[in-house]
């Protein structure tokens, strides 16, 4: 019962976050200079055409009504049309671009979880030894090196010097897609890997000092089982929470990585849209990115009580 209450509170908070994001993106567009109707109509349009476009965009209505309309349309996937080019539906742009971003962000996250948790566990088991020091130093490097510094360095060595991988995405792929995604995913995963390593290590070190670990050792549980079943299983919980927050870095990191590797994802599209001042595209991309972040964190917080009975019990 208490769990249900806690979960519904969390859901409510998630919903409020989504509303907040939608309000900010809605009002952000009004910060943009110029009149969108005038922009679409063009300089030469007559007053009648201009008024018609204004009405179609709903600009003649008061803002609360426009906000409700905006959210109502957004929920149905209607984000309007791009200002430029063939005036493509933003919906189509998102459908084209989102899979690439989700693919690299999720791959990077999985890679970060696998490597981060393994390295962190090893470091904690070998606490204060050389292995531990080495892993800690590497992870400090990993947290501080910016992804746009790492990207060109990786390209220089693996693509230009060794010629193992393609430099950037191309319109006509000359190799399986996988080869084009290796460097972007590696670049993107560095920071979350380093963060999860440090976190797993800290949490595991703390857990291994607990009494139940001493009990396990005393009753002769084999080391492998002791570290994994008794240690890691308890230590992993804060790491899971961090997976949610790290996903935010992956989403903004994808702006950089997609720009650096010319990947056709939502991040590079946002930057293109900013360069051309394509407000509906910027608005939709930011809204979708922010929403993804909120939903991932919501999901993580929903999973936690299922995994850990202590959270289930303690939540009021």
């Amino acid at each position, binding site marked *: 019962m208490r769990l249900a209450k806690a979960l519904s509170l969390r859901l409510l908070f998630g919903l409020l*976050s*989504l509303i907040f994001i939608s309000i900010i993106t809605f009002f952000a567009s009004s910060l943009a200079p*110029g009149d969108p109707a005038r922009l679409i109509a063009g300089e030469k349009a007559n007053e009648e055409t201009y008024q018609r476009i204004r009405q179609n965009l709903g600009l003649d209505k008061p803002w609360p009504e426009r906000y409700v309309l905006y959210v109502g349309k957004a929920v149905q996937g209607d984000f309007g049309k791009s200002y430029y080019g063939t005036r493509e539906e933003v919906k189509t742009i998102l459908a084209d671009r989102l899979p690439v971003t989700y693919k690299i962000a999720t791959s990077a996250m999985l890679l970060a979880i696998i490597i981060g948790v393994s390295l962190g566990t090893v470091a904690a088991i070998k606490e204060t030894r050389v292995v531990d020091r080495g892993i800690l130093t590497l992870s400090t490097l990993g947290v501080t090196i910016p992804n746009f*510094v790492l990207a*060109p360095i990786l390209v220089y060595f693996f693509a230009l010097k060794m010629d193992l991988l393609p430099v950037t995405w191309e319109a006509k792929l000359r190799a399986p897609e996988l080869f084009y995604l290796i460097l972007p995913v590696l670049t993107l995963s560095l920071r979350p890997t380093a963060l999860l390593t440090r976190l797993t290590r800290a949490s595991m070190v703390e857990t291994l000092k607990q009494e139940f670990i001493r009990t396990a050792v005393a009753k002769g549980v084999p080391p492998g089982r002791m570290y994994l079943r008794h240690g890691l299983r308890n230590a992993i919980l804060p790491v899971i929470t961090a997976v949610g927050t790290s996903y935010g870095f992956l989403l903004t990191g994808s702006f950089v990585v997609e720009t650096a590797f010319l990947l056709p994802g939502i991040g590079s599209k946002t930057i293109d849209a900013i360069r051309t001042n394509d407000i509906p595209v*910027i608005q939709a991309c*930011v809204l979708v990115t922010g929403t993804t972040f909120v939903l991932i964190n919501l999901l993580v917080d929903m999973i936690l009580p299922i995994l850990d009975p202590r959270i289930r019990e303690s939540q009021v």
Partner: protein
Amino acid sequence: MKKKRKDIFLWIGIGYLVALVVFAIVGPSIFKGTFDVVGAPHQGAGAPDALIGTDNIGRSFLPRLAYGARISLGVGLAVQFLSLLVGITVGVLGEFAPKWISVPLMRLTDGMFAFPDILLAILLIGVTRQSWVADGGSSGGGGLLAVLPDGLLPVIVALSITAWPTIARLTKTQIASLKDREFVVAARASGASVPYIVIKHLLPQMTGVLLAVSMIDLAGTILAESTLSFLGIGVQPPSPSWGSMINDARSNMNSYPIELLWPCLILSLTIFALNFVGDGLRNLADPKSK
């Protein structure tokens, strides 16, 4: 033993930062060569008027890096100043103001965390970009604004708006833990007003923690500024920024890989140094935390 090692890193970090500040202040004027005029021939390291060489269009590295340091430190300090100002104010109000002020303020602070990392800054710069690009650096603004490099002000504003909530939360939790301590209760009992208690008793207690967090946030801000400039939506050319230098260097790294080295190195070292100093200060301010 361990404590000493930590101190060494703190001092190395401080030493590097002092050197960087000096470099940023005097660098653009003492090193020969131009940082914004293009067209000179490319020169390798050791050339008489470009100590560590120039980029492919003849802009000398040392003054460019120094100017970039000015931009990074300038943006960083301005953003930290603004976000401390707003963050502390919101945090104090969140703890002391009547409910109808404090509750909406703290909900707003919570809401800001719905945007991951610098997404909000990207949005704000994105929608307002046309008004500052079209304006140009020299024509618009007037007064102080006219001398700022193109794109600097929007970066500062956008990053400050993204940065203050962390400070606000920290201030609120710090005050919440301090305000029932004896010295505050005593001050209250002797009739001190809330502003007096905040300024005379609470803020001085928090300077250490706030300073440490600001140092680490400063690293984040410098990183964010470079990211925006790398993406081409931050500080605009001809003003050099470390981020845009890295972006420029990528296009010809096959012929001049060394061009990539300098901005990457100085940016990474700066972020390291700020983290060392931040961690060091935090250990000094709050020895219990790790």
